[in-house]
């Protein structure tokens, strides 16, 4: 993984530069053709038009409730002048060359409200290119001037009365080439953007057919639950698998870095098997402090200056000379993100010797690299099918690829040859860490005699969840994790004497 990301970190820093447009939609033709079936039109990595007139939009962003499937489809549908009923959406495979989040650098992933913003220009251009090729195909078919061809609700028309659907033109559009990159529409011509369109996933989410990870059905699929320690980092010392193996339906029991895995036919057998396990844990070196202990130590630390994240003017001098000083300490507790669909992942070996993971992957490039490392594969040998996820709220954006690692550990150790679905129970989720971290902020503000803020001194104390992950060298500098000072070090208000500093604490509770 180190190698995979080493070259990329510098670019990651230049996220906003990358966003200025390095895209994959002008793929060389042979690749496009390879992706398209017979008379399908697959102009770029973001859409396919089938002879049955359906348009499949390929979303590089996971859908877990914020609506990117609908938003992304809206950009393309508007640019194409498609009819909304033609639109389907499917998730993109893990492929950071085609599907990087342009605001993250060369990493495919979703987060920070960036899905629409980074896709906007990319998809407008992708849609404009597809539209121009449909028009060129119609012009060729009808032997008319392309300039007089219009498209309305998915129907390509010419004043002579000729008309065709996208589906009818798909085969020909796949073979025509256009010169240059056509301009996207003017905002005045938008017909869907800015208007209400029905969400693409609403119907399937009202009749039970929407496919989440937990719903995956495959031949010979086994279910795996993992007995996890009650202290983070504890390791199984003695395991008696016999009572678990005696439960009907339990196939095997084995140790993985995360705990003791029970693989069974279905959830209930796995759960009963796990409940029956007898495990003693080695808790050497685990975190023993309570939340209360931690908060107390943080509050003390917050009274001292930390590593500097921003330093404008002279906060100390301004505070000393202020007409009034206001001081306060703010404490935030550990919080479980608790998405309603607990962590889960389906993993299997593929016929070509690789592996496939099917789950709510939020950082596909990380998950792919992490699973590959565990399984001794190259990242490209690991496929990820990103599925709808029952919320995330931050929980799935594990910068160290926890769920992918866990699934790969299970697959690596299992004797079961078929696919395995790992499910976390709610108890696993609440006790399982990756909490929003405890943070303490100590603020001192200085006012002048007119009540203007002349000084602001903010000390932030908490754990870094970037530390030890592929994002560390880009986002953790001089003792400051950018994610823990964001909003404070970037304070947009004009305060002449502003100091923001941070203390990173080391605690054995994983956070996110």
């Amino acid at each position, binding site marked *: 993984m180190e190698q995979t990301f080493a070259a990329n970190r510098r670019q990651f820093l230049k996220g906003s530069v990358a966003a200025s447009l390095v895209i994959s939609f002008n793929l060389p033709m042979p690749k496009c053709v390879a992706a398209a079936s017979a008379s399908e039109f697959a102009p770029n990595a973001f859409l396919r038009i089938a002879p049955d007139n359906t348009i499949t939009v390929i979303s590089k962003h996971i859908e877990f*409730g914020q609506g990117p499937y609908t938003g992304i489809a809206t950009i393309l549908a508007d640019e194409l002048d498609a009819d909304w009923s033609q639109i389907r959406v499917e998730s993109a495979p893990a492929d950071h060359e085609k599907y990087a989040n342009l605001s993250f650098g060369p990493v495919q992933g979703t987060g920070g409200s960036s899905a629409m913003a980074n896709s906007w220009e990319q998809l407008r251009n992708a849609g404009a290119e597809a539209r121009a090729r449909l028009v060129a195909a119609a012009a060729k078919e009808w032997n008319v001037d392309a300039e007089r061809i219009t498209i309305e609700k998915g129907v390509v028309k010419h004043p002579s009365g000729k008309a065709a659907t996208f589906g009818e033109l798909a085969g020909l559009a796949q073979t025509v080439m256009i010169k240059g990159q056509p301009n996207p529409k003017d905002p005045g011509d938008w017909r869907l953007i800015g208007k209400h369109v029905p969400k693409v996933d609403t119907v399937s989410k009202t009749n039970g057919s929407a496919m989440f990870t937990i719903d995956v059905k495959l031949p010979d699929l086994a279910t795996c639950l993992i007995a996890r320690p009650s202290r983070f980092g504890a390791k199984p010392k003695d395991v008696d698998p016999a009572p678990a193996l005696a439960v009907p339906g339990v196939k095997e029991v084995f140790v993985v870095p995360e705990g003791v895995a029970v693989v069974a036919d*279905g959830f209930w057998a796995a759960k009963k098997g796990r409940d029956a396990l007898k495990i003693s844990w080695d808790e050497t070196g685990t975190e023993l402090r309570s939340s209360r202990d931690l908060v107390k130590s943080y509050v003390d630390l917050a009274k001292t200056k930390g590593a500097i994240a921003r330093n404008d003017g002279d906060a100390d001098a301004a505070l000393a000379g202020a007409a009034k000083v206001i001081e306060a300490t703010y404490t935030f507790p550990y919080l479980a993100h608790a998405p309603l669909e607990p962590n889960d992942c389906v993993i299997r070996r593929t016929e070509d010797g690789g592996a496939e993971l099917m789950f709510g992957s939020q950082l596909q490039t990380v998950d792919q690299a992490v699973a590959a490392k565990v399984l001794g594969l190259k990242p490209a040998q690991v496929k990820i099918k990103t599925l709808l996820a029952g*919320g995330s709220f931050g929980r799935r954006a594990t910068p160290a690829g926890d769920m992918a690692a866990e699934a790969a550990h299970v697959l690596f150790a299992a004797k079961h040859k078929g696919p395995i679905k790992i499910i976390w129970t709610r108890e696993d989720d609440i006790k399982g860490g990756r909490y929003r971290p405890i943070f303490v902020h100590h603020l001192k503000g200085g006012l002048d005699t007119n009540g203007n803020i002349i000084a602001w001194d903010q000390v932030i104390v908490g754990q870094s969840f970037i530390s030890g992950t592929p994002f560390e060298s880009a986002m953790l500098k001089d003792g400051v994790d950018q994610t823990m000072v964001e909003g404070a070090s970037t304070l947009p208000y004009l305060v002449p004497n502003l100091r923001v500093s941070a203390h990173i604490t080391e605690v054995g509770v994983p956070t996110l």
Partner: protein
Amino acid sequence: MVTLTLNGNAIRYDGDPSMPLLWFLRDAQGLTGTKFGCGVAQCGACTVHVNSEPRRSCVTPVGTLDGADVTTIEGASGKVTEAVKAAWVALDVPQCGYCQSGQIMSAVGLLSQMPKPTDRDIDLAMNGNICRCCTYHRIRAAVHDAARRLEG
């Protein structure tokens, strides 16, 4: 041996009677529209109808269902269900959607008993169904909308 009706079909089951209905539906019957959220009747994602009333399938052992009539989101039908589904679609209620099968089954249960619920009635009847995306405002509006559709 348990004999029950599931979405109109007679089913015989002679497996582990302690298995919760939720896992019988999902793993044995392949009906995955009913969701696992907590396993302890605290979130409502697993709500189905047993003898026409909402029930948390995650804490209902199959062994207790001899002779019962079970309906899941896949099998739910009739005027009230159609009205609720139409309202859910019209108002684009779901976000991540994971809780919505349970929400709909609870809403159908409510409107079957109480055709014209107030905000308070809705809040009380639906309060065991958690939506982590907080679609509650649209759920309430959709229940009212479904009630209007049933009137008309």
